[in-house]
Each structure stands twice: as C-alpha cells, then as structure tokens.
C-alpha cells in the first residue's frame, strides 16, 4: 500500500514520542510556573 511508504508527519511523531511529551510536560511548568515564581519571591526587596 502506498500509505505504508508515506512518511509519518512530524507532529504525529511528536505525539507518539511519549518520553518527549513527558519532558515537555515537566519542563514547561517547572520553568514558567515554579522557577519564575520562586525567582520573583526571592527578589522581593526588604522594607525600610
């Protein structure tokens, strides 16, 4: 079948790559939510 020879689209390959998804699902919230948030709190100035 012709279908068998056709390359699998990149996005489908991404969605089939479970460990890539795991990496993204951990990294994105860790950076955008946890690290950014903690950095902001760490940088709060001291009251005079």
């Amino acid at each position, binding site marked *: 079948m012709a279908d068998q020879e056709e390359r699998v689209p990149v996005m489908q390959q991404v*969605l089939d790559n479970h460990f890539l998804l795991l990496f993204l699902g951990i990294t994105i919230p860790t950076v*955008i939510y946890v690290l950014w*948030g*903690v950095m902001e709190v760490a940088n709060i100035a001291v009251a005079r």
Partner: protein
Amino acid sequence: MATTYRICPRSGLQFDTAAEKLMRWNAVAGVLALLLGGIMALGVILTRWPAVHLLPADQFYLALTSHGVNMLLFWIIFFEMAVLYFASSTLLHCRLATPKIAWAGFWLMAIGAVMTNVAIFQGESSVMFTSYVPMQAKPHFYLGLILFAVGALIGCFVFLGTLVVAKAEKTYEGSIPLVTFGALTAAIIAIFTIASGAVILIPTLLWSLGYIREIDTIMYRIVWWAMGHSSQQINVSAHVAVWYAVAAIVFGAKPMSEKVSRSAFFLYILFLQLASAHHLLSDPGVGSEWKVVNTSYFMYFAVLASMIHGMTVPGAIEQAQRAKGYNKGLFEWLRKAPWGNPAFSSMFLSLVGFGFLGGISGVMMGTEQLNLLIHNTIYVPGHFHATVVIGTTLAFMGLTYFLVPVLFRREVLFPGFAKLQPYLFGLSMYAVALVMMGAGTLGVSRRHWDMAFAGAGMAYEWPGAAYLMMGLTGIAGVVAIIGGGGWILQIVFSLLFGKRLDEGETRSTPIPLTLPPQTGAHAAHVGTPGTMVLALVFLVSFILYYFVNWKYLSSLWGMA
C-alpha cells in the same frame, strides 16, 4: 511467575491477571478513602448548614481536613492508578511492567494514606488539605503524604514502563489508543504534581521535626499548589479519558478526529499545570506578568483544549448514534441515548456539569482581577465540587458500573437503584455547586466554622440570602451524600454478594491487537449539528457570565 491473561467474556477485553489484581486493589482502596471522606463530608455539611451547626469548631476543622485529603488525594489517585493500569496493559493487550514494583507502590500509598489519617484523627493536625505554613501539623501527617506521593510516582513509572513494553513487544501497531493517550497525559501531569509535592513536603516535614527553622510562606504556596492544583489536573485528564472510554464502550463511538483530540491532550500536557497560579492571584509577591501568563494557561490554551473535548466527546456520540439511524431532528440521537445505563448517564452528567458549572466558574475565578471577588470564599469549593465531584468522581462512578462485571466478575446488585444513582448524586451535586457559588458571590468564607461569628467582637452580619444559600447547601449536600453513600453500598454489596460471573478463558500468551483491514475511503461522513447547538449554548452562557463579573468588579473600591 509467568504472566497469564484472562479474556473477559462480557467485554472481550484482555487482562494481565497480575495487573487485574492491582486494578482491583487500587479501586477498592480508593472507594474506602471515598467512604471515609464521605462520612467527613456529612460532618462538614451539617456544620455549615447554619440551622444545624452540628460539630464544635475543633471537630469541624478536623473533619474538613480529613474530607479534603481523602477526597482530593487518596480516593482519586488510588482510582487513577487503576485507570492507568487499565489504559496501559488492558488496552494495549500487553503485560504490566514490573507488577512487584507496582505492588510496592500500592503499599506505600496505602501506608501513607493510613498514616496521614491517623495523624489527622489524633487531633493536632487540623491544618486543612493545604497545610499552609507556619501552621504546623505532626510530622507523620507530612510523612504519610510523602509516602503516598512516592507510591503514586512508582505507579506512574510502571505505567510508562508498560508503554515501553507494549512497544518493544509489538502488542499494538501505530499509535496508542486515544484513551491511553489521555491516561498518558494524566500520568505526565501526575509526575510533575508528585515531584512538586515532594519538593515542598520534604522540607516541611524537616521543619515540623525541628531541623529547619522557617519556611517562606509565599514560596510554600507556589510550590504546594504545583501539587495541590495539578493533582486536580490529573483528574481532568483522567476523566476526559474516561469520557472517551465510556463513549467508546457504550456506543462504539469513534473519535471525531484523532488529530484534534490528541492535540487537545497535547495542550493539556504543555499548559494545564500552569493553572496552579489560580491560587496565588490575590497574593503579594508574585507579579502581574507571572500571574497573567500562568493563570491563563499561557493564553487560555488549556481552556481551548477543554472546549474541544467538550465538543468532540458528545460529537463522537452523536456521530455513532446517527450512524445507527437516530437521525431525526437535532437531538434524536441524544433523546434516544441509553439514559437508564448508569455508565452513560454518569458520564453525560459529568460532562455537562464539568463544562457549565466547573469550567465557566473556573475560568472566571482564574482571571487575575476577578479572583479578588472570590478568593477564599465558598465560591472556590463550589467550583471544585463541580470539577472534581461532578467531573471526576461521577465519571469514575459511572466507569465502575462497567468495571464491576468486567473486572470484578460480579453482577451489579440493585440495578433499579443503579439507574437512578447518577441522577440522585449528580443533580444534587449540581445544586451543591450552584448554591455554594451563590453564597461565595455574596462573600461567605470557605473553611469557616460559624458564619454568625459567635464570640467575635465586631461580628459581621451576612445578608439573609447568604444564610439561605448555606441552608440549601446543607440540604443538597445531604442528598448528595445519600447518593454517594448509596453508590458505595451498592458497589460493596455487589462485590461481596453479587452473583459470580464467568471468568472467561485464561491463557499464557497475549492475543496481539489487530486492526481491521484499512478501508480506502472514509466511511460516510456524519455531521454533528446537535452537538454544535449545545456548544453554542455553552459559549453564550460562558460569555454572559464572564462579563457580568467584570461589571461587578468595576463597581468595587478602586485599587491599584
């Protein structure tokens, strides 16, 4: 020990016998947590019902702590472990990776759950589910939660390991089923959740033991909510997967589009967890940029995903029903749905309630400025009783009606009650969520023993409508507890005394999943106009409610 497989004669599903046992034990442990949490719910609701005001303050806060922990963590995560094992080994027709390690995970979870409950019932650990520092619980309160989290983490890795096994042993071809993909989404979010929980609870444990002097309160809230909120995002992914599964089981429904549904889950993986920021919108210390980016799941991409699932699940059902000939008008497919089948009625009530009540309220209160209107009011529990109870618990209850004969090989007792139960529990929970949100809109606090402020020097008097709403919360809550308690009794009785069903064939090699031959052209395309109409009704309600709240906000004291 060699792996054996059982073919269920009722569903045609194939179970790895080791995995099957794990599913059963996890599901039962979950139901026990639900039972305890439900008893606590009765104490909570009867105290918040102003005319009853049952428990003294200390017992109320103890009951509330236990209710929160058992419902939001133990019941749901135990059940989710069962869902993960089902979605991997059963749906992929393969053996479960390392069942022994999975058992170690289960026992860690069980020991942890018991330990935390012991700490709560000893008193002195009534710190609520959130255990905000610097209020301190006993060390074994935190230790129990940590053990539970580690056990659940092990379960997630067993799930991922099973995906690897299935791929290596080629038990399926192409991509994993959509439901398994949804379970994968849940597992990924769970790993982030549990890791965050460990990151914050381990220092908190050390602090309660006296090794650490102080824990920063804002940082605690940031990292704790990466667990506390994300754990509810595991639920969202898991119950959406269950919706797809029930649609497939009951109707043989095929996803409208694999691409769309999987992309929607992909958006969950990327952005859903950012919503932990919903809890910090009225906090000092984190800036507006952080709040806006995180609270909106980047740019409402996870809301977009939920709106997609909200359409594609009923859409798939509509297509399946229309293909069967229920083609009259816009809604014959829905009218002729099996409303007496509790698996379906639970799933549909779950879907509608999650969207209309939980979804709309969640987005409203997750808006940075609008959050000022409801932060820490009883609106918040109103919202999450719509998402977690109507969305998740009801969906899981519905799935259990299917699992009792298939997984536990028992006939469901009291089928007449089973027909009614989803409506009794579901609709009363709709009412609970609505009146709690009503009271919250009037400002009534959550986690508050006495809205009459007995003993306060400068008591505030809530408007009569707030008392009315809280009274209705009590009444609807009691009905819901009857509905939920009835379900527990029914399931427990069925498991103990239901007629034993045929086990089916047990074999030592799995039957690989085979796909039917590909058809060149797609089957005749069926449209989904009925679902579209429902979706538009949803959208209009959403827009109206959203802007009504902006209008309300604009009338308040100026703040900058």
